[in-house]
């Protein structure tokens, strides 16, 4: 329990420092193209990893196949440029439907 409080406090402070550093100290500092390339790739790597980690869970204990068709639906509907909520609702409907059937 204590670790949760410490983690939240640490993350809150880190977040404030991130957003304060640029405006207060760095000014209009130009980051190098290579730094930009990594900073742009970082959220993509983390989002991808986060989705997988959430799906599988610790030691793959949360693995549930009904999530996969639901997420595929989300991806397909998004590629066809549907709004956020439509994508999520379509995915939820597929996963819930599969769970009702099995």
């Amino acid at each position: 329990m204590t670790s949760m409080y410490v983690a939240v406090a640490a993350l809150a402070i880190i977040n404030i420092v991130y957003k304060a550093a640029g405006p207060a100290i760095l000014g209009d500092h130009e980051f190098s193209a290579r730094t930009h390339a990594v900073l742009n790739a970082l959220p993509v790597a983390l989002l991808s990893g986060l989705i997988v980690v959430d799906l599988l869970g610790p030691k793959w204990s949360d693995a549930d196949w009904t999530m996969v068709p639901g997420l595929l639906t989300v991806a397909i509907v998004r590629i066809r440029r549907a709004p956020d909520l439509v994508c999520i609702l379509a995915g939820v409907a597929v996963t819930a439907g599969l769970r009702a059937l099995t």
Partner: protein
Amino acid sequence: MTNRSSAAGTSWRAGFKVGAGLAAGAFALAVSFGAFAVTHGWPAGLTILMSLLVFSGSAQFALVTTLTGGGMLPAVASAALMNLRFVPMAAATASSLPGGPLRRAMEGQAVVDGSWVSAHRPDGTTDREKMLAATLVQWPAWVLGTALGALAVPSTDFIEAVGLDLIFPGFFLVLLIDSLTESVRLIPVALAAAAIASLSCRFLPTGVALLLASVAALSALRRPPEPSAGESTGGRP
């Protein structure tokens, strides 16, 4: 002066308008975050406090997911890495913010994905009023949504039966797809990160697995960046 203040007034209104749209999405996501955290053993009060202080969906979700799998340091580190993008984003607003370092540091706190993107002008400057207004609308929506989800938390059986557990990965998949359609060259990074994460979370704590997945981003060093490389990926919290 009159012209300037009326332009500022227009910016505030534009910011509130775009913020209202972003807030609706943030509210829905926050409700599911509140329920998600509480069903993962987080106290409701702390969950709401986290939304109040951190105000970042992807980092909060990363923290709850990875801390549940054990290991505080890797959990905080992966959530912190997730938000590292805020450093260059906030730095880019510096020249558009008034006052001394302290005031600019305070106003820089308004940098969140959706507000920053909508206030970012083609010439690289930031519409300060628009960014502040858009964030001012989203923040209470994020906190209130979290409170609703955390306090009126539905049972795990109900969440699974109606597929609500798909909201979080689904939302982040939407962000991922958006980033990848913007920068197709990042698809190998996403695939490599997914492979590393799936293999490593079989044997290691989830926070460590997520940290290892972030290493895939280093492969971006090997290719010259596209002209749009200064743009942020993702859209919302």
